[in-house]
């Protein structure tokens, strides 16, 4: 085989290989959601109350502290877990006690849960308990929502926005 023919043949083989690579760089397409579905996401980062009540320090106790560490209250460092529930059309979809983060358990609790649902209208209820109470809930929202196909419907908690927000 002449050198030119070999080079031409080599080029064709290399080009075919590269073409296959180019094709596989975005084909076949991947569908992460079944057609006509949507994602409902429950996610927030929120710190619950401290585990115990803060205690006011007496003047003697404050005086005993190093000058740069003096404070008027002694508060326990750890936070309580957050209890959260999500109901969709009256059926419980998620229920969990979210522990605080951090080595000392003083960080906020966090949740990030995705639920794939058929796109339609839903009756969504979300509840959260972040205090010492053992019954009932501190924050709650109940609303009918319309979820479109492929929509990312997010349930977030933003105290500065008044509690749970749906978007």
């Amino acid at each position, binding site marked *: 085989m002449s050198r030119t023919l*070999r080079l031409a043949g080599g*080029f064709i*083989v290399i080009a075919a290989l*590269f073409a296959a690579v*180019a094709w596989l*760089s975005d084909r076949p397409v*991947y*569908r*992460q959601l079944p057609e006509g579905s949507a994602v409902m996401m429950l996610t927030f980062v929120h710190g619950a109350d401290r585990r115990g009540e803060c205690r006011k320090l007496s003047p003697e106790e404050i005086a005993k502290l190093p000058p740069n560490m003096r404070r008027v209250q002694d508060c326990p460092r750890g936070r309580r877990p957050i209890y959260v529930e999500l109901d969709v059309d009256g059926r419980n979809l998620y229920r969990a006690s979210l522990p605080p983060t951090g080595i000392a358990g003083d960080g906020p609790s966090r949740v990030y849960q995705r639920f794939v649902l058929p796109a339609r209208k839903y009756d969504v209820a979300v509840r959260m308990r972040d205090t010492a109470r053992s019954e009932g809930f501190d924050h709650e929202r109940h609303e009918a929502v319309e979820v479109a196909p*492929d929509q990312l419907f997010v349930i977030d908690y933003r105290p500065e926005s008044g509690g749970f927000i749906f978007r």
Partner: protein
Amino acid sequence: MIGEIRSALRIGFALIEQPFDRLFGPALNPLAQLGALGFFFFWIVAVSGIYLFIFFDTGIERAYQSVEYLTRDQWFHAGVMRSFHRYASDLMVVMVATHLLREFAHDRYRGVRWYSWFTGLPIIWLLYASGITGYWLVWDKLAQYVAVVSSELLDWLPIFGEPIARNFIATGTLTSRFFSLMVFMHIAVPLFLLFIMWVHILRISRPRVNPPRALALMSLAALVAVSIWKPALSQGPADLAVVPSPVGLDWFFLPLYPLTNIWSNGTVWALLGAFSLMIGLMPWLPPLRRAKAAEIDLAHCNGCTRCAEDCPYEAIRMVARTDGMPFPTQAEVNPSLCVSCGICVGACPSSTPFRRTQDLRTGIDLPEFSLKELRERVVEAAGRLDGPGRVLVLACEHGGGAGRLAGTVVMPCVAMAPPSLIDFILSRDLADGVAVAGCAESACYNRLGIKWTEQRFAGERDPYLRARVPRERIALIWASALAASRVEAEIAGFAARLATLSPKRLRSPLPVSASSRPARVRVPAKPGSGP
């Protein structure tokens, strides 16, 4: 089990390599240039990336628009560069994966070769980190998918206080600073990758980091053709209110991402961890039985540096003389780098079988297979040759001639045979011709054995094969272990040619010593094979 997988893969590679050898020629066979092509594609990615950065805007709104501008409006240069950037990255993954499989198939990852194998592992991680961070920058639907799944994977690790994935739940949660960070990472990670690529080849002598020019030009031309035929395009702007589905995945960089939809993120991390652990431990599963490293005999070493020059593994270095001989340097072997291939023995000018000392010694020798033993085996094998066209075969233990019995001397690498051994065989009339049967040309087990042998025989590299040695009585046969039948056919053809040649007129001026006199052993003719 591992051995069986290796054998199956070796057969698979040989089946591809043989037609590739015929089409491209051994010098241009891409399978013999995987590492060099990996470097080549890295540079293409680097240069095209710098070019694209001129047009790229790191703002949250502008990122997608700037990529669209360079893809659509400036398609003839920046668009082509974008395709170069993507496809060369994908090709780098292909090269790395094939290179890894091929080195495994040829058992070139155990023993002293553990270092190159082990340092290949961070290359895989950094290559994927480079590619994945690059996909985020386009900020199209694929970028959104990659960003969300990558963040969810990272959030599984107990590193970040607040989930990173929460950055992608709504448009307002993402800032332009995020893109600046990603650009920084997309530059820093490949730089670190380049550093590890350098570390990867540190222990190799004459690493091939550039493919042959013809192969590089063909690859570049093919990249241009593919970039024009199927330019890399965005998949519509990211919209955090919508789940990107369907999405065109890059199956080279993102094959595991769909698994996060089936398995938990922890399971995917476990899979990655298990893969890395397995790759990391493979050189010792089981460890390679290592022959003793080459040893220097200072009484025969004049510090000529040829062994150090020819060692494919940087296992020999020249150090200051220690024995008071009037030479400035002497060779020193690093046993932790020596694979006992014997190439240094073939390079040593003292390695001449003509030496008439009782105990044949050379400047550098293999303790478990010395030059003296090689000469003895040659003489013994020659004694069994008979009839017209007697061929003595010097075979590499990894090549197609390794399985031969009659008239064959097997050695770790054919470059272990000093050129003077050929002269010795022919001048002492031990055989009518010598066939040197090594590995396939594009798959030399000891990297440089074939190259050095050819250059020594051609008089281009010390030690030369003397001019008086008739070249028509030497056959070089390069074939893999799977091509044993081709080796046999070539040897038979060579023997037939030798039988037609006029008698040799090549005699050593020295009298024949007892150690080099073959004991003639007549091999009985097979029934029916003679008249």
